């Protein structure tokens, strides 16, 4: 199998929360553990296998001034060459920092010069520290500042507001990682078929280790567009508490008056969730159907990642 290696840069000023996010998403930290993290020195590179065949080479770049100067100066070639995704993290509390903005501009210039195909994601992070009623305006203000500064990028930056304390973390990182999976639409077409065949309201595919959302299909409208990230967050937390008692989460089945929910291991690297509100639907049959399409999706995922 051809190994597909994607380079991701994680940048932003020191203390913005880069190492915290990556530790929670990819290394099973609980949010509170991140208080013990020290500042990152230079660059910490990690290789993460995602969905089996996708290898993410994540460059967590320490944000102290001396390192930043070095990245946009002497190390520029090395750092900004061949980048697939750059994630730039802003601390929501210190968002007006002119120095941070000027580093951001330099990073964008370097990206435009060295990796013009690169997608740029900007996270306005630690939103939990901003009073709830101000979050929207803070985010809008910061996003337009980001757009102003990054106009030279061939592919415009995409902005997210995030916090390690809620599902916004999963929303942003699901989008980031999905931008690297080339054929999500094929996957979604197949999920839709499964959804219809099972008479389900919706079907969602999660990556097993991170519980990031990869693809979804639904036949029934739902008001909450962020529900899948909420599920990611809920199940990921639960998985971590299972680990504490030295066991692993395998599946969940829930039934009440109005729905049946099934969350189960699916292919080798994914989990699936099915929601059914049809009262005639039998959980046992749903489980059976899911088992039957496993192999098919296993092959499909391999193709999608090629």
């Amino acid at each position, binding site marked *: 199998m051809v190994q597909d290696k994607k380079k991701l840069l994680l940048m932003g000023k020191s203390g913005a929360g880069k190492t915290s996010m990556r530790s929670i998403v990819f290394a099973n930290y609980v949010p509170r553990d991140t208080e013990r993290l020290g500042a990152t020195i230079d660059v910490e590179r990690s290789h993460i296998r995602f969905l089996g065949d996708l290898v993410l080479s994540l460059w967590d770049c320490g944000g102290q001034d001396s390192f930043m100067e070095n990245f946009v100066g002497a190390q520029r070639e090395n750092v900004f060459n061949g980048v697939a995704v750059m994630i730039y993290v802003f601390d929501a509390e210190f968002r007006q920092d002119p120095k941070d903005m000027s580093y951001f501009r330099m990073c964008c210039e370097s990206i435009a010069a060295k990796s013009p195909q690169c997608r740029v994601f900007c996270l306005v992070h630690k939103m939990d520290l901003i009073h709830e009623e101000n979050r929207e305006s803070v985010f809008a203000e910061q996003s337009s500042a980001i757009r102003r500064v990054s106009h030279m990028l061939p592919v415009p930056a995409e902005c997210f507001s995030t916090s390690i304390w809620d599902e916004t973390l999963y929303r942003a990182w699901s989008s980031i990682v999905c931008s690297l999976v080339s054929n999500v639409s094929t996957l979604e077409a197949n999920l839709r078929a499964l959804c219809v065949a099972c008479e389900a309201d919706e079907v969602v595919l999660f990556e097993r280790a991170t519980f990031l959302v990869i693809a979804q299909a639904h036949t029934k409208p739902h008001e909450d567009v962020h529900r899948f990230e909420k*599920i990611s967050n809920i199940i990921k937390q*639960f998985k971590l508490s299972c680990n504490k008692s030295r066991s692993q*989460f*395998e599946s969940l089945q829930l039934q009440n008056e109005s729905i049946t929910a099934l969350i189960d291991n699916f292919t080798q690297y994914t989990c699936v969730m099915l929601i059914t509100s049809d009262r005639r639907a039998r959980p046992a049959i749903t489980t059976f159907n899911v088992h039957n399409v496993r192999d098919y999706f296993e092959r499909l995922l391999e193709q999608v990642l090629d």
Partner: protein
Amino acid sequence: AGARNELFAAGKKPNIMMTGLPRSGKTSILSVLFQKVSPHETLFLDSSDKVVKHEIENSAFCQFQLWDVPGVNGSSNAANAFSHTGASLSVHSVVSNDSVFSDCAAVIFVIDVTSEETDEALQRLHHTITRAVATNPNVFIEVFIHKADALTEEQKVQCQRELQGRIDEELEEVGLPGVSARIRYRATSIFDHSVYEAFSQVVQNLIPETHTLESMLDFLVNNCGMEKAFLFDVVSKLYVATDSTPVHPEDFELCSDMIEVIIDVSCIYDSGLQDAARASGNAQWSGADAENAGTGSGGGGNGSSSAAAADSNRAPPPPVNFGYQTHSSATIRLSNNMVLYLKEVSNYLALCCIVRSDVFDAALGLIEYNVGVFKEGLQRVIQYRVDSNR
């Protein structure tokens, strides 16, 4: 969801008093347990110098009044009047008036282990104990050795031994040696399950049916070959009863986390909640309104779920049973061949059991039958309680 869950007249509900020095963590504990504030958000709590009374009206067994009594240094704050549900009391009059103790079924004294003011805390604790015992000899006294997340297991034991030694000594000096044996010490932190476990045990002391519930759970566990069973108050995630085998903290944690997962997932897919949110237009839900709206529409649970709390504009506090859903049941399978089985058995009460998967798969019918029997028995216990309290 059923009718409003105010099962007993206010006077018949036991009082629990929560006290300790300022900043020891009293309000944090109560807001995490009963208002679903997430632990890291307690950083924003203002230190208040008012006595606050909370009415807890969850399941039939979780009915009590909580008094959050701030520690007052000296008498400097004596002038701070406060009013709640009509009553107007100054902190000083509450703290100095012995009648508040005579109504009190349990006193929880919170000691901050990270604070330097141990001497002061102990002095105050001593004072509280002697007055509480003088007015109500049957009062339960609970010492929460709090913010224990800062300590290792060893330090916890050490810390408890030291505190206990000093308190025993002082009680002996004033001629109250018998009281020492009745004081319970528990290491707690809002950042893990310890505070839930500790508070559960405090509440169980105040439930007259504890032994009945325990034998019913024993019967269930023995008949079905279960490993462990807890009866949970769904809204607070406190367990009101368990079978008589020892409680391992990991088991409690898993079951408690399962309830949370099931509540959260249920609420996301609860069309009733979505309708309610739409109807209310989100913003006006606050304070007393929220309570009325919650209870009036079949809820009664206080606090909002963590899932909904993330919404903007302080979303409506949903009646977190499992949203508006009833007849909830769930299974979670784990890789160590254990199954967690959850079943809603009454209004705001859920049974959560740990069963080996071979037993579960072989005897699901038997388990469901016996859970049904348990449910009927439980209904009778509750009915008896309600009748005798009217």
